[in-house]
């Protein structure tokens, strides 16, 4: 086998005459190919009173086209051992799958049909609607999801697209009509909004030939973009507590709004987040809450910037009796890193970790597809894997200190706590 990825990625990028962007990376990991089609059709673009529309569309888009019934699609997928995945986030809806190399032409043609010509059969809408409502009910019973979604709502406000759950609510899902699905598809699914990734055991020439055939003749006006509405950072501490009897553990979500992905401070923030809640078992947070105090199985932070200012979220699951102690520990670690900054050793180790992680981020076809999509979506350059070490090496102690001082202020934290005994004196 060849060492395609040893020297870094070398994707072939082509813009089709209709505006679609295609990226192909040949690899030799296994006789399989990952295909991933992303559109700017995430929840940001839903009407504000119809949250969950993009999510529901993702559940129905692959259940019937002008020329293939739901059953025909099911057979085509199942006969080849292929599970189609559809994911919806704030900005992007992605349809993807992994198939054997020999099935690549058939699967690409099927995906193109699903993307271009879905017919949203009414019976399928009803089935997927009912499933989505069941999923929302399950989420309502999950303390980790309740805490996370409540925190998003606190940070961004319930009306902001970043503050709403992607699945919407039972009320909005019940209201979605077939016409609204069709309209959303017509407006958002256009070649100018498509990034198609093909990664695996297929040459760029062969892949592009099949892409040309699958997307030939498809034209549609470019979707209108919607800027991310402004976000007002919290001026004071806020919290919300959700009592869920019958549960064993309480989930804490604690966070701040931060910067967008294209902000020049991005890499400094990444290093800061790694020190706070990632490095080792979960950075300083896990060292305190798990290792020193034995209070939680998990305590970590996650930094998730996008086109708009993303959140930095700290999460921990603790015994209901330890909620206040755990919050005090989070406050202490957040406050200390914010006030004093990291140590030289922490910055050096984290930088080394992030640089060393690059080859691992490209370990299989799916992870390469995700990496290349990020590079394309944010315009970071297709040689990002090779430039990352220099970008990370350029991060200085002052950058990390400034990031920590900007964000890590307990007096401005937002907290959501969900569990059996949200208050020590209740339940």
């Amino acid at each position, binding site marked *: 086998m060849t060492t395609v990825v040893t020297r870094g990625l070398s994707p072939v990028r082509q813009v089709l005459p209709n505006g679609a962007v295609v990226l192909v990376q040949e690899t030799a*990991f296994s006789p399989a190919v990952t295909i991933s089609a992303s559109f700017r059709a995430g929840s940001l673009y839903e009407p504000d009173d119809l949250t969950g529309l993009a999510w529901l569309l993702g559940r129905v888009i692959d259940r019937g086209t002008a020329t293939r019934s739901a059953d025909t699609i099911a057979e085509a997928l199942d006969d080849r051992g292929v599970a189609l995945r559809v994911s919806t986030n704030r900005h992007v809806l992605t349809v993807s799958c992994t198939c054997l190399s020999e099935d690549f032409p058939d699967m690409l043609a099927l995906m193109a049909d699903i993307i271009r010509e879905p017919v949203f059969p009414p019976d399928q809408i009803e089935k997927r609607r009912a499933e989505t409502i069941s999923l929302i009910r399950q989420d309502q019973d999950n303390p980790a999801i309740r805490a996370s979604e409540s925190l998003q709502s606190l940070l961004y406000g319930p009306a902001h697209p970043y503050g709403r759950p992607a699945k919407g609510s039972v009320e909005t899902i019940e209201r979605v009509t077939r016409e609204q699905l069709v309209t959303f598809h017509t407006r958002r699914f256009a070649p100018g909004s498509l990034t198609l990734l093909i990664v695996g055991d297929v040459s760029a020439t062969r892949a592009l030939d099949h892409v040309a055939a699958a997307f030939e003749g498809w034209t549609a006006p470019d979707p209108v973009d919607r800027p991310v509405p402004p976000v007002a950072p919290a001026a004071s501490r806020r919290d919300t507590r959700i009592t869920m009897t019958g549960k064993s553990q309480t989930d804490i979500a604690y966070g701040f709004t931060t910067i967008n992905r294209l902000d020049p401070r991005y890499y400094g923030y990444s290093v800061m987040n790694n020190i706070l809640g990632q490095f080792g078992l979960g950075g300083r947070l896990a060292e305190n809450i798990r290792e020193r105090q034995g209070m939680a199985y998990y305590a970590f932070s996650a930094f998730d910037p996008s086109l708009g200012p993303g959140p930095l979220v700290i999460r921990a699951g603790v015994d209901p009796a330890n909620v206040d102690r755990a919050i005090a520990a989070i406050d202490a670690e957040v406050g200390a890193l914010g006030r004093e900054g990291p140590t030289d050793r922490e910055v050096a180790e984290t930088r080394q970790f992030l640089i060393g992680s690059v080859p691992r981020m490209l*370990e299989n076809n799916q992870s390469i597809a995700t990496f290349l999509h990020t590079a394309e979506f944010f315009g970071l350059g297709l040689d990002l894997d090779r430039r990352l070490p220099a970008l990370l090496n350029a991060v200085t102690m002052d950058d990390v200190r400034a990031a920590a001082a900007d964000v890590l202020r307990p007096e401005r934290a937002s907290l959501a706590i969900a569990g059996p005994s949200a208050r020590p004196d209740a339940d």
Partner: protein
Amino acid sequence: MAVSERVLHQPSLREARLDNGLKILIQEVHTAPLVSVWCWYRVGSGDERPGLTGVSHWVEHMNFKGTTNIPRDEMKSIVERFGGMWNGYTWIDQTTYLETAGKDALDTLLFIEAERMEHGLYEPEECESERTVIISELQGGENDPDQLLDTEVTATAFRAHPYRHPTIGWIEDLRSMTREDLYGYYRRHYVPDNATLVVVGDVERDDVLRRAETHFGRIPAGSPPVRRRAAEPNQIGERRVLIEREGTTGYLKFAWHAPAATEAEFFPMLVLDAALTGAKGTNIWSSFRGAPPQRKARLYTALVERGLASSVSGSLVATAEPFIYSISLTAMEGTALASLESAALDAIERVREQGLSDEEVARARRQLKARLVFETDSVTNIAHQLGYFETIVGDGFVHRMRPAVDAVTTEQVNEVAKRRLARDKRTTGWFQPVERRV
């Protein structure tokens, strides 16, 4: 060099054994500048005695808490300085530790695994602090109704065999276990002749062997306990579990006794599961995430497409001794568990009485063969599969899976459905949600 060595079925795979009994599997994969190192121990929760349930998993936790030559806070950061990821897991037959990192990390990763095998510290205060961490892990699992139901159904399906208790252990054992229990268990089981070291990646075989000899060769052989597990008596009637607890959603679970990986019926059963609920594959590290291809699967069409369940999944995992085959269903809002159970059993009875068609079985076989390709797409996943099957079953099994799937006939699948999925061999569990107190 004190190793015996031979070439196995794959040209790039080498097997060796050190004088102290440590088995080593090395596969060169030069598609990325990475190496994945896994150290497997033939010990899991199925080896625990009553009163010490959860000890294997707790020992796994302790083995990240420092050794004679690696301070606790360095156990993970050493790997991360190479950009590596690390982890470990414990299940009924095995405990394993892994790192995947840039290939330059190889020597360091072998050093860590050798330290873990020989020099775990088990400081009393670290054991105590980990007790509450594990209880927190257990409580987090209890927050998930499906997991709660799974624990109860498994415990009900077995009367005697130690597969009955959850790997994390029963809470009272976690409260009472001592540091000496942990350390004694560690010393008995963490010996080279009870372990397999797997190295896969952009490495050179002779170099790996030399380094492995340097790091592990001086560790004395032990006398790993002979595995003695109580045999499960034949089940003679249906068993049922009902959990009524605050929640929003009903869950239904069936379990039947399944063949061990080495039994002739294992592959027909795997094909049966693929036909009923969609093929997952055999890699428990990666294949069970996300939905399988299942839109034409019998139980999906009978229950999800008919709007009675919002999801269906099946689970058959390769194990050393007979474990369970389970089918899990999430009730659609508004569907009573009784109706869902009756529809599910109708569909299963139809399969038992009328059999699956050749077409369904052929599809299931194709799905499984595709999944066997997908689940070895990275050095980490290849290494998992090599070590898992070596530890559970032994010699070369992983390379016999594809022909074994190919050889399964419709008759074998139908026979296995008829006999294995019988009512008197079944355990049925309900999670019946009740309204939350405000």
